[in-house]
């Protein structure tokens, strides 16, 4: 599969008052048509910055792309003009926002909000756009789409609104879909339904999808491949199965260890509590010289403090940035 979206050495620089630092450093990954790549990391790991950079929505001049290319269909989005971006956004790249409560215009009915995008990019007239929106509402499983078309956002529940947000992102059949924590703001049962809808539609549309999340359960259910980010860099990248079966980076290992397992609750560990990763994420402007994870890593040695490990192949299709990767099933 040829990649549809290819990020190469992307670096996002932040300038805050007197200091300048990189929020995302030398990020490279690809996403193919129909594939779901999950970007996983803690707050501040740079995953949302990456999404904003791809959409070219960074709050300039505070944040800017200082290096790298974002290749989409032979066009470098990092250098594209505002006019060409406008014809791509919403039309060929859709973004699903995190907050369904605030990402819809409160003074506009939901149907026309979605129809607006269709009329803008596909040149549909009002009647055709309305029919198409009702179809999409049906697809995202909004009950009674004909009536819901004329609802205002405040007349809908959070889950319904998130379905509208998904409908908005998918309205023009985009080639690339970016979902920034699409279920974080919802309660758990709604989350499951929305994820299911999302997965079905993503498969139907065949969009290359970047799923940004901190929730490994969501990853396990949805993603084909996973890239784990730490302090602005990818530390490990492989298929979802391999990541859960044989994590190579100690950070990934720690993350997986911090998920509660109901099955294990019966034979609880001696302390009866979740494993956690000691320490906190280092400040991006005061990163250690070597591996950023070294201060928290149980396996760190002298070399980790001196030299930053490159992202290198551990096995075919499995990259990790660690001098002393985890052993085990590989």
């Amino acid at each position, binding site marked *: 599969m040829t990649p549809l979206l290819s990020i190469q050495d992307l670096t996002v620089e932040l300038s805050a008052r007197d200091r300048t630092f990189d929020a995302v450093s030398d990020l490279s990954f690809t996403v193919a048509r129909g594939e779901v790549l999950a970007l996983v990391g803690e707050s501040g790991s740079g995953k949302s910055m990456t999404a904003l950079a791809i959409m070219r929505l960074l709050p300039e001049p505070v944040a800017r792309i200082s290096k790298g290319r974002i290749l989409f269909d032979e066009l470098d989005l990092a250098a594209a003009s505002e006019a060409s971006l406008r014809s791509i*956004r919403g*039309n060929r790249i859709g973004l699903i926002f995190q907050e369904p409560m*605030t*990402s819809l215009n409160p*003074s506009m009915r939901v149907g026309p909000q979605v129809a607006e995008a269709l009329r803008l990019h596909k040149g549909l007239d009002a009647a055709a756009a309305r029919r198409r929106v009702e179809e999409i509402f049906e697809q995202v499983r909004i009950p009674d789409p004909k009536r819901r078309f004329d609802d205002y956002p405040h007349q809908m529940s959070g889950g319904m609104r998130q379905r509208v947000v998904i409908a908005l992102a998918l309205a023009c059949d985009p080639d690339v879909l970016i979902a920034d924590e699409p279920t974080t703001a919802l309660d758990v049962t709604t989350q499951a339904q929305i994820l299911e809808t999302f997965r079905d539609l993503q498969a139907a549309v065949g969009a290359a999808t970047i799923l940004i999340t901190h929730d490994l359960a969501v990853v396990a259910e949805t993603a084909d491949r996973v890239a784990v980010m730490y302090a602005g860099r990818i530390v490990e990248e492989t298929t979802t199965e391999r990541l859960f079966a044989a994590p190579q980076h100690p950070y990934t290992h720690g993350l997986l260890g911090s998920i509660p397992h109901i099955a294990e609750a019966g034979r609880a560990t001696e302390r009866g509590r979740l494993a956690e990763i000691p320490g906190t994420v280092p400040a991006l402007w005061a990163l250690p010289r070597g591996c950023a994870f070294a201060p928290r890593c149980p396996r760190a040695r002298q070399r980790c403090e001196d030299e930053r490990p490159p992202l290198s192949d551990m096995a075919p299709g499995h990259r990790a940035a660690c001098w002393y990767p985890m052993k085990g099933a590989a």
Partner: protein
Amino acid sequence: MHEVTPARPARRRRGVNVFLWLGVSLLAVFALLALFGEVVAPHDPNAQDLFAMLEPPSAAHLLGTDNVGRDILSRIIVGTRYTLSIALASVLFAGIGGVALGAIAGYFGGVTDRVVTGIIDLLLTVPNIVLAIAIASVAGSSATGLTIAITASFIPPLARLVRGRVIELAQEDFVAASITVGMSHTRILLRHILPNAATVIIIELSLNAGQAVLIGSALGFLGLGVQPPAPEWGTMLGASREYLTMAPHLVIAPGIAISLLVLAFNAFGDGLRDVFDPGSSS
């Protein structure tokens, strides 16, 4: 008898919006007078009767007559049109100008914002009376000059209000969402930001209309607006100043008319605020 009333969610009862109804009904009366003044008026507002000068209220002249024997009630009724149209025109133009300036400054920010804010601050330094005098001395006193002077004094505060609201709204997720859908700035501003600022703008404008009546009357009183013999209320006040001790009804009648119209606009504005924004107290 088994009559089951289905449980209804207790709807929070709000009292009748007295302000809004007071404002709407007063404004409706004034609007009708402005439209059909000549028909309703018992006398010709400009017909002089030198045998009935400065007459106190009577059956023939309900509000009495002025210094040349014109019927005051008729003059007030016909004069509604001047006051109301000056108020509405200045509010309309101030609305267009203030919203445009404020929206552009707030949305685009940066240099644009600084330039527009500079213009607004400059406008703020000119008192409306000075501007009215300047216009009157150049183009002669007229309703148009009056309207321009009032408009100019309303634009800066409105532009500031709109600018603040637009800056606030531009941070909202749904604005970012409309960018990700690929909309142009104009479209985002007109379709997604300004409609959400509409309530603030409408309330401010209806309160401004009351102000416009007051300023218009004051400038008319000073002889800077509509010229006699046109029955504009402020002008009528100014002309009857000399007869204050002999015939106080000459001053009281237009004074009450002005107060009622101001009250109507203010009550309307406060009522609207209660409707749109129940949290804040008026």
